[in-house]
């Protein structure tokens, strides 16, 4: 370090006598500003407005009629949505198979056919159903829904979810993304299929809940039925849903036998 000149030594001595303005206390202001900045994001009017809008939208979507309307506006009639975890199954009440599943009123095939204006299809591969259920408005969709319950069938495992071998549910509508929806759990897959020229979807994997969009365009929750593997087929205006512990091939063969 070069030797300091006499002038430099004078200046250094002078430094101690320089009168500076009092140093202001910066900590309170700086501390307030850096913490305010953190809060501001959450407390901003825009964030609050966004939160209110999201809550309002959630409320509208949660309410079925407005959800249907919103879906109609955006032409979003089907939502395939992954859920992180499905609701655990609850024990089914005792009684006839269909009663446990809340399929509607027990009836006969003949009465069911008479109760609706459309043709109820039967899968010949499964033979005559063990139970038949009919559900009409206001609980069922417009035009009603008919469910065929099949107890044990050779080569088909009895579902530990539904207690039956196969459920075939039919209602007016069509099987495409405009009329059927399904909530999918983790590990559930969906494949587009075709049976006898009719389009459909094969949904395999974890148990799931259905909600259908009926022929009038209204979304209807099908929360009483906890399906296993499911095949959805559009049979010329009739929605046919085949549920059970079925392989894809089994389900397609059953669908192919509908008449």
């Amino acid at each position: 370090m070069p030797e300091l000149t006499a002038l430099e030594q004078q200046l250094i001595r002078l430094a101690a006598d320089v009168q500076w303005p009092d140093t202001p206390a910066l900590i309170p202001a700086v501390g307030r500003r850096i913490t305010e900045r953190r809060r501001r994001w959450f407390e901003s009017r825009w964030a609050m407005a966004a939160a209110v809008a999201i809550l309002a939208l959630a409320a509208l979507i949660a309410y079925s009629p407005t959800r249907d309307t919103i879906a109609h506006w955006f032409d979003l009639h089907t939502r395939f949505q992954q859920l992180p975890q499905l609701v655990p199954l609850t024990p089914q009440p005792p009684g006839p198979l269909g009663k446990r599943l809340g399929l509607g009123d027990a009836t006969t095939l003949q009465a069911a056919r008479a109760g609706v204006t459309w043709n109820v299809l039967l899968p010949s591969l499964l033979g005559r159903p063990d139970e038949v259920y009919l559900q009409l408005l206001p609980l069922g969709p417009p035009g009603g829904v008919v469910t065929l319950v099949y107890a044990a069938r050779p080569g088909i495992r009895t579902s530990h979810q539904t207690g039956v071998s196969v459920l075939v549910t039919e209602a007016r509508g069509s099987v495409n993304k405009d009329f059927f929806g399904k909530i999918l759990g983790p590990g559930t897959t969906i494949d587009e299929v075709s049976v006898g020229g009719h389009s459909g979807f094969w949904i395999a994997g974890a148990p799931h809940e259905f909600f259908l969009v009926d022929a009038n365009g209204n979304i209807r929750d099908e929360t009483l039925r906890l399906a296993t593997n499911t095949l959805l087929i559009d049979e010329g205006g009739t929605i046919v849903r085949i549920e059970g512990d079925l392989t894809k091939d089994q389900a397609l063969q059953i669908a192919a036998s509908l008449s």
Partner: protein
Amino acid sequence: MEGRPTDDGELFARAQRGEVAAYEEIVHRYQQVAFRTAYVITGSAADAEDAAQEGFVKAYRALASFRAGADPRPWLLRIVANEARNRVRSTGRRHQLELRLAEGFRPGGAAPSPEAAALAADERRRLIGLVNELSEEDRLVIASRYFLELSGEETAMALNIQEGTVKSRLSRALARLRERVEESARA
């Protein structure tokens, strides 16, 4: 060890993890030199306070860019000095920095005779007056280097010039001051 001051590196590491209290300790340590540096640049206590406050806030936001292990003082002073210069530019005014001397002697200094005290006081006032008469460029570099006791690197940061320029500018400023001191002595 209890009572041992936390070193700057640890404080900065904690502040970088979002610990506000650690950053407030950093502000506490450096607020005086930051404020005085800003004062030298702006020549106004009010502007210096604003610049120092804004500088510390900006430094907090830029903590992620601070390299671990580096000397924080030049880094902080550069941010505060930039803010001070921005303030001068945006307001379009630069106050004339006028350095003053504190009245009386430093605590601990030996009590001089009244005559010696008067003579020493006159010499100090004369010297500070001559510094104040220098150009702004000369005054800033002398004030930074000798009165603020900034290092060459810190002076370069504060004045936004190269460290080599600090040396040459300081050398010229001292030469001009020496001339004035000699002229004053002859007068």
